[in-house]
């Protein structure tokens, strides 16, 4: 940490005028009680971690109602779930010790731990789990409910500490969904209700809630009595910093310890000794959605041409400066349902031109809609690269940029989009079922309503392991052949971090801090 040398400021001042400014600044700083940057206060045992979070939940900030990524950052640390993914995307037990399906995967029996207490000292029981799931199921405004569309009922099992989930369909990957529901204490939640619970949440996780100031910070502290062993970090603050340059500068200057950054920010700071850059391939896929009813795009040959006209590897290499992996499947490499044996669609502009000639494409304008800000880093540059590739094979492309919310709203209305649209999908459940359902069985990105594709989506629910991956592989090949959804790449999650921080970046982009530690 550079020392605070006050005298030098005046020497650097180019004029008397600036001396005045600097003097005013010094006056202000002299009034302040501490001269160290905020990140270094109280170097207590275990340490305080300050994370620059990209966003805040767009909803009441408690886990029954809010299923946003921003919210999961808090809930993954304050609450427990039945099952949980580790940083590599492997399923791990959490509150559940084991889970067992019936023969056709329509009924799942979970056994839960009997040594868990909430932060208020009350025991966590099967009833709390059942209560939480029912609250989510019965909510009209919860963004978690969408995860549980397959769930019919949940009830206590005959044996102690067991509960039974009854589904309305077969679903072999059901344990991936129980990672999405954070368990709340019935005795607190039913008394306070959602909005008040959000002000003073009580969980059972490795950290407990301290305070939340919307727009500023969410603060949690170590739960000494955590059943899985108390975490090393004393305190964690999620500070909302929406600007990516502010996040990077914050880490470099030591004001924060950790923040997500964009691929184009890496080059300038790669050699900076004050930070380390860490990255991991994310669980998301950036793809071109297709309104297969739009003029030009209603011809499968034109869609085929587009698939082969785009050089995915070059986009990753040149636009993202290597920050990702080219991908031809609807799920990322770390997500359940990815099939290694499926080939990346070839980049072959000649084939594309040939296909266009065959299709009798007459230069109809195809619109490419994309968000100029928001969820896809460098989205404008990526969209321009795609425009370049398509123009090169003779497709006329009209670009239409908009803000992320507008695009999201247009996507969720489904029949509204004009042609191609740049979109992304990252399943926090680390499983391909949700994106597949959304893309091929009547979800918001599904313009095709193709029965074969939807049939495959349903088929994968009934089989397990390699058999299931094979069905996903078949779906991936059908998708490429038909050009329903055009996957492009899986972006990296890239972070700038304090070199003293020991932690592991996760594919889902979330911060799970029970095993993180700070060294001096």
């Amino acid at each position, binding site marked *: 940490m*550079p020392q*605070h040398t006050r005298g030098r*400021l005046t020497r650097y001042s180019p*004029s*008397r*005028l600036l001396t005045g*400014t600097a003097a*005013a*600044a010094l006056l*202000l*700083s002299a*009034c*302040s009680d*501490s001269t160290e*940057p*905020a*990140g270094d206060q109280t170097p207590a045992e275990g340490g305080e971690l300050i994370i620059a979070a990209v*966003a805040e939940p*767009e*909803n*009441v900030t408690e886990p029954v109602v809010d*299923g946003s990524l921003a919210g999961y950052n808090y809930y993954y640390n304050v609450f427990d779930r039945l099952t949980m993914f580790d940083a590599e995307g492997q399923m791990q037990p959490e509150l559940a010790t084991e889970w067992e399906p019936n023969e056709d995967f329509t009924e799942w029996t979970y056994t839960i731990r009997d040594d868990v207490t909430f932060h208020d000292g009350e025991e966590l029981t099967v009833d709390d789990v059942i209560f939480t799931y029912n609250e989510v199921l019965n909510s*009209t*405004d*919860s*963004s978690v*409910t*969408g*995860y549980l569309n397959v769930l019919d009922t949940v009830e206590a099992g005959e044996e102690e500490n067991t509960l039974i989930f009854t589904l309305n369909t077969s679903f072999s990957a059901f344990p991936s969904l129980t990672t999405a529901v954070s368990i709340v204490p019935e005795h607190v939640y039913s008394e306070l209700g*959602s*909005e008040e619970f*959000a002000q003073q949440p009580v969980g059972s996780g490795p950290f407990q809630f301290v305070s939340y*100031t*919307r*727009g*500023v910070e969410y603060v949690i502290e170590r739960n000494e009595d955590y059943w899985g062993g108390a975490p090393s970090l004393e305190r964690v603050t999620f*500070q*909302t*910093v*929406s*600007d990516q*340059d*502010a996040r990077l*500068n*914050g880490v*470099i*200057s030591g*004001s*924060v310890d950790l923040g997500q950054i964009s691929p184009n920010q890496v080059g300038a700071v790669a050699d900076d000794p004050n930070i380390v850059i860490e990255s991991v391939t994310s669980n998301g896929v950036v793809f071109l959605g297709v309104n297969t009813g739009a003029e030009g795009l209603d011809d499968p040959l034109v869609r085929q041409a587009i698939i082969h006209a785009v050089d995915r590897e070059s986009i990753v290499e040149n636009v993202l400066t290597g920050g990702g992996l080219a991908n031809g499947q609807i799920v990322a490499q770390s997500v359940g349902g990815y099939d290694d044996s499926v080939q990346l669609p070839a980049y072959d502009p000649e084939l594309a031109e040939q296909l266009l000639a065959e299709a009798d494409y007459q230069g109809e304008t195809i619109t490419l809609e994309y968000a100029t800000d928001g969820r896809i880093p460098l989205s404008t540059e990526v969209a321009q690269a795609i425009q370049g590739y398509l123009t090169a094979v003779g497709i006329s492309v009209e670009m239409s940029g908009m*803000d*992320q*919310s*507008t695009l*999201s*709203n247009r*996507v*969720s*209305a489904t029949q509204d989009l004009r042609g191609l649209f740049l979109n992304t999908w990252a399943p926090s459940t680390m499983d391909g079922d949700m994106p597949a359902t*959304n893309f091929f069985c009547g979800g*918001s990105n599904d313009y095709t309503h193709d029965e074969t594709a939807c049939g495959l989506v349903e088929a994968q629910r009934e089989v397990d392991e390699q058999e299931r991956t094979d069905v996903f592989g078949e779906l991936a090949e059908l998708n490429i052949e038909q050009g329903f959804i055009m996957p492009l790449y899986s972006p990296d999650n890239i972070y700038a971090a304090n070199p003293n921080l020991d932690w592991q970046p996760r594919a889902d982009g979330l911060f799970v801090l029970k095993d993180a530690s700070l060294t001096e």
Partner: protein
Amino acid sequence: MARYLGRRLLQALATIFVVVTVTFIIGRLAGSPSALILGEWATPEQIAALDVELGFDRPYLVQYADYLGGLLQGDFGNSYRDRGTSSMAMVMDRLPDSLVLGAAGLSLGLLMAFAAVLFIHLTRWWPLRSVMLGLGSMRQSLPDFFFGLLLVLILSVSLGWLPSLGSGSLQTLIMPALTIATGQFIVYARLLDNALLEQGKHDYVRTALARGESPRRVVLAETLPNGLLPVMTVAGINLGTFLGGLVIVENVFAWPGMGQLMLTATFSRDFAVVQSGLIMVAVLFVAANLLVDFLYGIVDPRVRMR
């Protein structure tokens, strides 16, 4: 005086009514926030159900009448995101931070401008005037977000003197306040400089000098009070741009003010909060202009409030 106040109050209410109506219309054109709140997993049925809960299924005119009715009773509507919280309460929560930053930036800017210009005019050291105006123009040609980042790069990243972002201590206030202050500085420095030069050409100055008053006294007692009038007029008008600039600066330094709140509210279509925020901005704007009018009367007794 009472008539004057009453008239200004009516004007203020009309302004706010226009603001409310325009933002209401623009907000509704942007569509319902339900899909954004529920996320991409949501089924169309869930979205429709939340639309009903939030009242978005009703005809626009009914929604508008309902909203205006609420306003008349002091009910600004709850945030769509934090559904148990009044949107105006959220705005009031953030207002102090914005006021602190705005006041610190503006007063520092004014202080710098007055100090620099008076120093130049009292010492008549004209080369310094060119330096000041030159540097000021350079600062003005940089957008606030860029100047803010420059400050961060120098004071936080290279020198490690100040935290690069955040709030809650005087140290965190310095860079955002400096960004605003330096931006405001040149506006007022140029105005005051011009006004003093302009006033200096008047006959009363020659008379005063001929009477044997010192040039210093002429500036302080004669030209400065007269020069204040145009500065104040522009200050009132400038406030709008100033409030706009505040949003950018808050974003660069993660300063948790009203600007940040309104920005995220806009992105997530939380219209109740956007509307309440704009009402607050309109109130501030009107109040500041009213204040300028009063000060005008004090500085220049010829101006009577009618």
